């Protein structure tokens, strides 16, 4: 029996914010059989992309797509305070449909950034941010600081493709030509592979950024060199400030250790001001280590359509923004929403258990390619073709560079975009009659 082998090159892995676009995928008879160049996580994701698909179900019972969509429309149009949530692991084309559905329903829409890098976005609203694309890091950066993140385990190829050992235009030697500094509360594989690991006490990000601002600007700090800030001597921080001022093109990559420790948005705000002020001396930038493949795209779509990157409520017919009031954790903790449309995220695995539990008490429509903790209890489960494997569309990398992920295998299921379009059309129809 002849098997048809197709080799796809420059495939984009949609797992994390790195969006590595050099993956080679072999497909035999419409099954992914081999994945080359990807990291372990990406390889596993691609190898298992076509297995473990859920059935179309309503209350756990198999049904037709048509019936599932009708039930979804029924739930959403009868809800008084529906939530549209997710966005982070699907295409911007699907995300655009989600915003429109939220608008038609006068619903609330949010994405996981409200409990990940949302504080960073709120900081940008206060002070802005000096940033760059990953290629600038590869080609130019001579100082890279990882702060509250561990890319060796979360964004595995970040270091080789972009930030540490990548051979850039002005750094043909790669790793040797860069200084790598890690700031974290405990040793991690990333801190171990850094030139300098600064182990700090938890919850002191704001103090560290404040101190560095003063040191970089050569302002008096009223403390001796032996005084400890975040458990580290001022003299050490002074050394870091000197290193920062002395570099030609420096970048801070910050993770949830910065955005989700005590202080949240004001941590990032202080960090952004620090980066901005360093630019009085040299070129300096910061970038959020965005997690899910297209969480950055979700923020972009929501911003160009509603004006705000997350936590938007349409109950008055126009977009209103208020993180805390309209972000997913608060809404669920206060048990305010009475139905939810969830796409391309896994609240059963991601949300705090007691908060996520409210979702089990209300009707939930869930679009997802694979079985996971949420498919176990969602009211309506609609399996979809996975973006970047069985569906095409746009993904935004962690530096907001948009790429087109492509369909490489056929699926029995529709894409998120197609299902959402059908739901939208039937909601409009239901509202008009």
């Amino acid at each position: 029996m002849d098997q048809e082998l197709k080799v796809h090159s420059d495939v984009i892995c949609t797992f994390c914010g790195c969006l590595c676009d050099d993956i080679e995928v072999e497909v035999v008879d419409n099954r992914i059989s081999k994945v080359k160049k990807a990291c372990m996580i990406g390889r596993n994701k691609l190898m298992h992309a076509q297995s473990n698909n859920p059935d179309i179900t309503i209350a756990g019972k198999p049904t037709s797509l048509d019936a599932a969509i009708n039930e979804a429309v029924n739930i959403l149009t009868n809800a008084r305070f529906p939530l549209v949530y997710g966005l982070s692991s699907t295409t911007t084309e699907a995300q655009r449909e989600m915003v429109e559905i939220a608008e038609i329903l006068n619903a609330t829409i949010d994405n996981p950034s409200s409990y990940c890098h949302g504080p960073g976005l709120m900081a940008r609203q206060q002070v802005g941010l000096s940033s760059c694309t990953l290629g600038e890091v590869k080609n130019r950066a001579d100082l890279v600081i990882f702060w509250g993140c561990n890319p060796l385990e979360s964004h595995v190829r970040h270091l080789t493709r972009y930030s540490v050992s990548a051979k850039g235009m002005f750094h043909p030697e790669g790793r040797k030509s860069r200084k790598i500094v890690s700031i974290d509360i405990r040793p991690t594989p990333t801190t171990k592979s850094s030139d300098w690991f600064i182990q700090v006490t938890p919850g002191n990000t704001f103090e560290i950024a404040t101190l560095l601002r003063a040191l970089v600007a050569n302002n008096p700090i009223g403390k001796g060199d032996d005084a400890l800030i975040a458990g580290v001597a001022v003299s050490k921080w002074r050394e870091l400030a000197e290193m920062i001022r002395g570099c030609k093109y420096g970048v801070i990559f910050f993770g949830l250790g910065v955005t989700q420790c005590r202080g949240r948005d004001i941590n990032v705000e202080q960090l952004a001001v620090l980066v901005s002020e360093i630019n009085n001396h040299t070129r300096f930038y910061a970038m959020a280590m965005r997690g899910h493949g297209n969480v950055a795209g979700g923020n972009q779509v929501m911003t160009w359509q509603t004006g705000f990157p997350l936590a938007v409520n349409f109950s008055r017919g126009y977009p209103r923004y208020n993180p805390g009031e309209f972000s997913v954790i608060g809404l669920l903790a206060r048990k305010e929403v009475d139905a939810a449309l969830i796409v391309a995220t896994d609240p059963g695995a991601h949300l705090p258990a007691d908060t996520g539990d409210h979702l089990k008490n209300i009707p939930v429509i869930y679009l997802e390619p694979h079985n996971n903790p949420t498919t176990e209890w969602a009211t309506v489960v609609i399996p979809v073709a996975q973006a970047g494997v069985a569906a095409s569309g746009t993904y935004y990398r962690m530096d907001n560079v948009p790429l087109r992920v492509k369909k490489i295998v056929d699926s029995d299921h529709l894409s998120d975009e197609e299902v959402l379009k059908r739901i939208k059309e039937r909601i409009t129809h239901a509202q008009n009659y």
Partner: protein
Amino acid sequence: MLRIINGKVYDPVNRIHGEIRDICIRDQKIVEGPLPPETEIIDAKGCVVMPGGVEIHSHVAGAKVNNGRMLCPEDSADHFRAHTEILRSGCNGVVPTTFLTGYEYARLGYTTLFEAAVPPLKARHAHEELRDTPILDTGCYTVMGNNYLVMKALNEPDEISRREKLMGVVAWLLESTRGYAVKIVNPGGVENWKWNRGLVDLDTPVPPFDVTPRMIMTGLARTAYELKLPHPIHLHTNHLGEPGNMAYTLETMKALSGSRAHFTHLQFHSYDKSKRGGFASGAVAIAEYFNNHPEFTCDAGLIVFGPTMTMTADAPMEFSLHQMKGGKWSNLDIEMETGSGVVPIKYQPDSLVNAVQWCLGLELMLLINDPWRVFLSTDHPNAGPFTSYPLLIKLLMDRDFRMSWYEMLHPKVKEYTCLHDLTREYSLEEIAIVTRSGPARALGLKNRGHLGAGAYADVAIYPFFDDKQKMFSSASYLIKDGRVVVRDGAIKESFSGRALGLELPVKGELAGDLKEYFEQYSTVAFSNYRVEEEYTPRPELIRCG
């Protein structure tokens, strides 16, 4: 089919100067007529009929525009629209969300819109937003003035090989980004800033390829000519916003004299220096030179007092603005291509600098004799939001109104400007030229900006009022592709416009060493770089030549 009767028609291309004429429309186009008697009629009695407006320079879609929206949620506090059965909701009075941008332009009578600066790596983003900008036909300009492939090609010692390589790069960039024109922003200056070096002049060698701004501008101008592009280089010169930059702008004009070029937001580039080093208007000298060079066009970049947002690929300019003013600053360096920055700003009439800028823009529009070469723009949102066009039209058309503003302006402004001496008032015909016919011609759009047979049925009908701000603030009718989309200032129908692109005379191909270079240093695979056809679902390709 549709017939517009009894309206005073202003169609400068076809030499119709405010005469009562019928306009006949069939199948998206304007036709000679007559149409069958049962044709639907729009009675435009007491109204002025013009071609749909053509916006030649505005920042409405893409990475930095969205950055601007993200930066200032407060600009939405008192500016929002609820969704209706036809319309999507929106907000932000300075950088409106995409749908609102389309609706607001349509209400002002515009039907064609160009996004002024798109870095190639972010082109998909711009197209995604343009797809969500309804009603208008849209296109975008591709930023090239600090592009490594352009600079590397220019560094080629052999002249013939240099020209060939450059032509390949420019065609490839336009094709890859689905762009409409070559945009140059602070040529060489953005790259120089990334090396933490100072400002560049025409002959400053810029790392890493040691080419000069002069080489970049003249090289790209020549390539645009050789590719027979419908719109020449669209140029934001070096030294934007510096007192005394007029001298530099004149030098640049001299360097480019003889080749077509569009100087954008010229107001920001026309400052003389006062004795104490402050801002003074250089409009007289700039306009004099410009008047004698019919190969140039420009748009004004008129200042609007009030809060707005500066956003440009000119990252060093934004950084110095931030250093000067403090406050919010967003920056994004884009690998091998450009930078960009966003800084909110408020123009105030009692600030001498802002008052000089305000006068200077109007002076340029009044001192440049030929309305076919100077166009109305606010470089939206840099000098002010486009929604202020009706006010600006009144300022151009009504000298008494203009003079009444002096009560608000800084008292010393007359020492540094000459606006108070200028008596010219724009006519309705001249307004039609600077807002539609002129930009359409400069863009090489033969089916737009006029109402002759064969043109797209894009027609704006304004109610006649003596108060020209009132007259232009919302169209009585806007007809797009023969469909009535605006009636008495309200949107009646919304649909997607066309994406304007180019049909190039050559295939865009990178020379071998350039391709190798790209593959080695870009973080995006060569095969993933090019914007796919899915991003322009309703394309209209304009043939070059």
